[in-house]
């Protein structure tokens, strides 16, 4: 079980995928208000989105993407019930994957 929420919906011939990930997305430039020390960088660097076995979108991110990132994209060719997989990797080597079916 991962913290990624993936929703894929068929609209005409387009599949619209919306996902929400849980991640602090620290840039490494922010100071902790109490200790006045820099909060170490911790952000998602790569997101890979697959439809069946085909990679539809590969995103590379910096810490400039908002906390708990939202990502939406569209692709052509999906059918109801096809699996859509979203996975991310961050700069600390952590990763998560979630699969959902096109509705």
């Amino acid at each position, binding site marked *: 079980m991962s913290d990624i929420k993936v929703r894929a919906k068929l609209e005409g011939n387009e599949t619209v995928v919306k996902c929400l990930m849980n991640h602090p997305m620290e840039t490494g430039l922010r100071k902790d208000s109490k200790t006045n020390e820099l909060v170490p960088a911790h952000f998602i660097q790569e997101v890979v989105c697959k439809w069946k076995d085909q*990679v*539809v979108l590969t*995103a590379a991110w910096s810490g400039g993407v*908002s*906390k708990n990132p939202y990502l939406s*994209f569209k692709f*052509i060719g999906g059918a109801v019930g096809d699996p859509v997989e979203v996975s991310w990797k961050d700069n600390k080597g952590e990763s998560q994957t979630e699969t959902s079916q096109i509705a």
Partner: protein
Amino acid sequence: MIDAKRRILLKGSLAAGSVGVAVAAGLLTPRLVLADWNAAAFESKDVSAALKGLLGSDAMETNDAVVVKAPDIAENGAVVPVTVETTLSDIAYIAIIASGNATPLVASFALGAAAMPFVSTRIKMGKTADVIAVVKQGDKLFSNAKNVKVTIGGCGG
């Protein structure tokens, strides 16, 4: 003979020690494992260096077929919704740049064969600036920008 062995032992422990120091100093952080993350482009301090690092060129043409959707006024710079869409075909890459940020390149997207030239996400903006979207078609770059006013405190000023 004894002295020679002692030398080798000393050398060995010194080498092991320096690796330990490098790890402790953060020189060998796990980010190095992710070789395909373009550190040079994402850590660039200006827009043209970031684009050269990412897409190999900063020679881009403004094109109204590239649509950047973002609010005119963002009350909270930490969460600015941005959507990039284009009617151009055969787009391989979409990059989102917040020109006022310390490291302007925010996100880049490599589109697969089935993907439509559309991405939507939320970005952080340090101050009022242009959000620039750059799309790559063949070896040409097209861009468009949208100014977003960031009002921390949210009083619309």
